[in-house]
């Protein structure tokens, strides 16, 4: 089993409590996730030297405070239902995939499929996210400070996305009940996605998300609301009779 070291993790001394340090240069991913799984709720952990490591802090149930101190790889924090995770850097594909509860905050950018299929919890990306962000969203919340790539929100069934920058092509293609807010431009909407009027309830939702993320560049009254036109909900047997 892994050796656990303890130290005062934060150089600026902002943390009075001791943090447990798990060092990727000394431990395998399996050892790190195994150690995290045994920790009691409220534990504070720093994962040091991640250097693009995949699958860190996945499948955790307890409310842990986890800092991944550097750039990380694929599937960070996926399947979680408890911890609050901060990544001090950028992440690869599918951060927070299938997240159930808790928060994942990424100070840099995210690659493809950020928050894919998440059922609950919040994924906050301070930088930009690549294509297919929030694909198949099932109730989670995704907040991106910068841009999102093409086909973001594809087939999103429930939940909320906020894009602080611009959205790429085919945004919200085949949306179900999820709602997407975009502060910047939209390259194109996907099939059955439409722009809708912003209600006070939308403004309140966006304000709550902006406050939670700590963004100052998004004004909640000025976002666009994208939701489903619901024309694909049922198969239209009379459509396209020419064939």
């Amino acid at each position: 089993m892994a050796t656990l070291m303890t130290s005062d993790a934060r150089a600026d001394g902002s943390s009075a409590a001791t943090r447990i340090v798990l060092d990727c240069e000394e431990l395998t991913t399996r050892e790190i996730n195994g150690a995290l799984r045994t920790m009691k709720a409220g534990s504070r952990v720093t994962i040091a030297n991640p250097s693009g490591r995949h699958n860190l802090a996945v499948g955790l149930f307890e409310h842990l405070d986890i800092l991944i101190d550097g750039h990380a790889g694929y599937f960070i924090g996926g399947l979680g239902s408890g911890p609050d995770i901060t990544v001090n850097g950028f992440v690869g594909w599918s951060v927070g995939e299938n997240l159930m509860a808790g928060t994942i905050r990424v100070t840099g950018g995210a690659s493809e499929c950020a928050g894919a299929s998440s059922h609950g919890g919040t994924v906050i990306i301070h930088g930009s996210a690549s294509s297919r962000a929030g694909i198949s969203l099932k109730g989670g919340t995704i907040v991106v400070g910068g841009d999102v790539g093409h086909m973001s929100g594809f087939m999103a069934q429930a939940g909320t996305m906020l894009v602080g920058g611009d959205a790429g092509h085919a945004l919200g293609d085949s949306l179900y009940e999820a709602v997407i807010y975009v502060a910047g431009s939209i390259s194109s909407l996907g099939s059955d996605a439409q722009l809708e009027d912003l209600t006070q309830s939308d403004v309140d939702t966006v304000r709550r998300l902006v406050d939670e993320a700590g963004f100052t560049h998004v004004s909640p009254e000025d976002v666009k609301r994208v939701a489903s036109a619901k024309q694909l909900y049922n198969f239209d047997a009379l459509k396209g009779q020419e064939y």
Partner: protein
Amino acid sequence: MCGIIGLHLKVPALESELGALVAPMIECMGSRGTDSTGLAIFSTPVAAGRFRYSVRLDPADGPGDAESEMHALVEGLATATGHQVRCERIRPDGGVLEATDDVALVSHELNRLHPGAVVMGYGRSLEIIKDVGSPQEVCDRFQVRNRRGFQAIGHTRMATESAVTIDHSHPFAPTHDLAVVHNGSFSNPATVRRRLEEQGIAFVTDNDTEVAARLIGRELRRGSDIHAALKEVGNEMDGFYTLLVATDQEVAVVRDSFACKPLVVAETDEYVAFTSEYIAMTSLPGIETAHVFEPKPEEIHAWRRS
């Protein structure tokens, strides 16, 4: 899956370390496939009018001693071609010969002298290493860490559409000083292949990547630059791809219109690095301060040697 890596050096100071820098990158990408492993290494060009030939001898000949067989080939080829021939390097699978740039003549005589010998790649700067097996095995077997050069691209294969043989391994090097590696799968290679065959272009395998490589080779021979050649891949070929293409002058990348397959690029004042996953470039010096980005769909990024 399949993994791809590349390193394009901007400064001569790192050239002696090319192999030592590239080996950990490709070994890391063993996580994306261990069926076969290949590298294209570009180093100081041989004289004008001369080419390097990466020659694989037929293992069916028996255990044989690569060194004595290569030396016999040097003498035989020199007599047959009337030009000087030099053995630049002995390798476990054969070696690298330096000879006249008359490729048709050299290939013909090689085949006559040693039936079953295969030229895996040729050019003034290019050497091709490829074999079945994991990147660790191949890097050790070919002593990749000791190699110098100004540029390398590499591939770890998880075969999905054609056989696992040395010939099916990437890189594909269909013309002089060109190497192509690919992560993905093309959906219309047979159609494009028929068109190319009608133009007299011959194929070695039934691999989909070989079709894209020979299409790029045709475009470059017609005088296109690498940017235009990759545009033609987008026009002609359907499917999923991240392609990394290197010549003795340039290196370029492109992803399909959906960006289905990953690619990370890191640039510093000293190098441009390419890997399927960021984790495979974390061993590079100065990666902490590199400009790291992912090319968008259909964007062609190219770097020319200065």
